[in-house]
């Protein structure tokens, strides 16, 4: 699953650590999501969307989506 988390984070000017603290996850988890090594749960994806006040699809894109 591709994602634009790094872009959204840069837009809001928040660090990985700040985002991690606000979402009660570790900084390593935020880093892993950004690097595409870890796909978050639906719950965390919703929390991220809420945090950036956007839709989940704005952050995450399923590879091979739009079929």
């Amino acid at each position, binding site marked *: 699953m591709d994602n634009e988390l790094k872009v959204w984070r840069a837009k809001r000017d928040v660090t990985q650590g700040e985002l*991690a*603290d606000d979402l*009660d*996850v*570790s900084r*390593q*988890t935020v880093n*892993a999501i950004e690097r595409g*090594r*870890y796909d*978050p*749960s639906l*719950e*965390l994806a919703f929390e991220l969307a809420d945090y950036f006040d956007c839709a989940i699809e704005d952050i995450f894109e399923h590879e091979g989506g739009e079929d």
Partner: protein
Amino acid sequence: MWSREKRLLTVALLVAGVALGVGLEALADPLEEQNLAWLVLLVGLLVFGGAVGHWASRRFEQSGEIDERFQEIERRASRWSHGALTVGVGLLALVLLVSWVEVPVAALLWALLVGSVAVHELSVEYYSRRM
């Protein structure tokens, strides 16, 4: 993921637990004939270990370090260690059932136990780097 300091703290707690167990065993030696004392000591150690584990887990959860990714890593690692332990015990049981070879069962069981812990730790390290 766990920092180096927290891993060291965990190992230190483990060593302290083993030391406590050895110490208590030495203290309880005169009571060896009284099975009740042993039982109380064993239960006490289990409760103590459980309480320390629960306390540490709560602290890590509150700090946000035990999150869903960590739990996923733990789940995958547990699958490997559980599998290794099951295969090991199964092989040992097979050898005991179908062969006449004398094997040191207790030592092998301990080795399997330690081995499964090692497999678990290695798996955690592997998945932490991959995820």
